[in-house]
């Protein structure tokens, strides 16, 4: 079971176990993590599961899809080059230790 380290804006880190094949967002919700809202529950509508991927991990992720790309333009916190929607990051065993930084705001 891969572990994801979510880093809050105040640098506090929370580690969450994730199921392989699920989006990283699901793991955050199951853990009750503050900072991932996921208002649409993974329907790719809302852009409220926004994260910044730690640079060391960026190359290991599949590229941003077209729908995700458009949604990222609507995030409440600034879109950065390493910005992703965590519902679209599918967890694999290779992503064990993934570091995702949380934005200041989701809405």
């Amino acid at each position, binding site marked *: 079971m891969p572990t994801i380290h979510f880093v809050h804006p105040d640098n506090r880190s929370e580690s969450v176990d994730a199921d392989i094949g699920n989006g990283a967002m699901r793991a955050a919700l199951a853990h009750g993590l503050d900072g991932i809202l996921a208002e*649409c*529950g993974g*329907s790719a*509508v809302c852009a409220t599961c926004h994260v910044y991927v730690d640079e060391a991990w960026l190359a290991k992720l599949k590229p941003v899809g077209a*729908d995700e790309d*458009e949604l990222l*333009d*609507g995030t409440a916190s600034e879109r950065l080059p390493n910005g992703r929607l965590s519902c679209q990051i599918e967890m694999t065993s290779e992503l064990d230790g993934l570091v995702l930084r949380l934005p200041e705001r989701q809405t």
Partner: protein
Amino acid sequence: MSAMGSPQATGSNSSGGRPPAAIPHLAIDPFSIAFFDDPFPAHQALRDAGPVVYLETWNVYGVARYAEVHAVLNDPATFCSGRGVGLSDFAKETPWRPPSLILEADPPAHTRTRAVLSKVLSPTVMKQLRQHFTAVADATIDGLLARGSFDAVVELAEAYPLSVFPDALGLRPEGRQHLLPYAGLVFNAFGPPNELRQSAIARSAPHQAYIAEQCQRENLAPGGFGACIHAFADTGDITDKEAPLLVRSLLSAGLDTTVYGIGAAVYCLARYPDQLARLRADPTLARNAFEEAIRLESPVQTFFRTTTRAVDIGGSEVGEGEKVLMFLGAANRDPRRWAEPDSYDVTRKTSGHVGFGSGIHMCVGQLVARLEGEAVLSAIARKVASIAISGPVTRRYNNTLRGLETLPITLTAA
């Protein structure tokens, strides 16, 4: 949920086929006035009877537990929408209006139209609307504070969406009085052929005529949602014939639902002064306070799906071609999923509630609804000290929507 047994249908609504005995039969009519007046004991009975039940009044299956409702919503290949999301089976009956190209459609056709409306109502578009929607909500609450006592259904829950949504769509000023009756008609028509549905359809001609006219390109102001939909006909994403029907989807589902949602939120804050106090202490809770009201009150109470094959639900087989009624409101209060499900908690983690549905058909206008709800509750949080119910609260009856007819309240300023 997985397939079990033969792919043949085991029965049908009209032929009197017998469902397997293991499925509990209930006499509850979820479209009766008595049910609408107090659905909660019946919701509990539906949940406790089993993962799937058979409703004898209308010869349909029902799911009321969170797990099964969520599973049905997220298996659109087995539980289709193309045969209608009301009781009427489009494979057997002629729909009362041309079917919706998004609500009453399945992939792959649905995928294309859904993508268009998703773009028209995207987070980026909401960013552009936020300032205006917030300013109008602030002015609305200021005006109501000056009056003190008023009916919150007409003067707030209806007035606010009517003051922002038709303009955002780009509707003409004339004829807007048809919008709420048309929406009421659409949501009544998902129900069975009872008095609510039959009388709504009998009175529908002038409302349908207005809607058909208003959906045409020349009647939609540049820059609005309606014009944006028509622009997708120019790029070939949809056809010229499809564009008006997609505008119709916003006119059907974009207004009354938010009226009921905002009404639900104000009703919650009026009944739970401790939660109003928490909201006032932290106005950034406004968006979640609205979301929690949607969970608790579930303005959209039910939708149907139709099975495309025999399927196992919670250990019982349901045949092909059967209508399955999803009790969204019961799922949103299922104690198997929610702690203290009947209480209103503005700090609850609400993600996963099915008040907007779930999966590929989840409300495409949810961001507009949340923007409106957040704007109103944020204005209340910053400007209102107390909300007192000051007269008789009465219910409005609709086959699908749950909400109030009157909510007399008195506001005091912060």
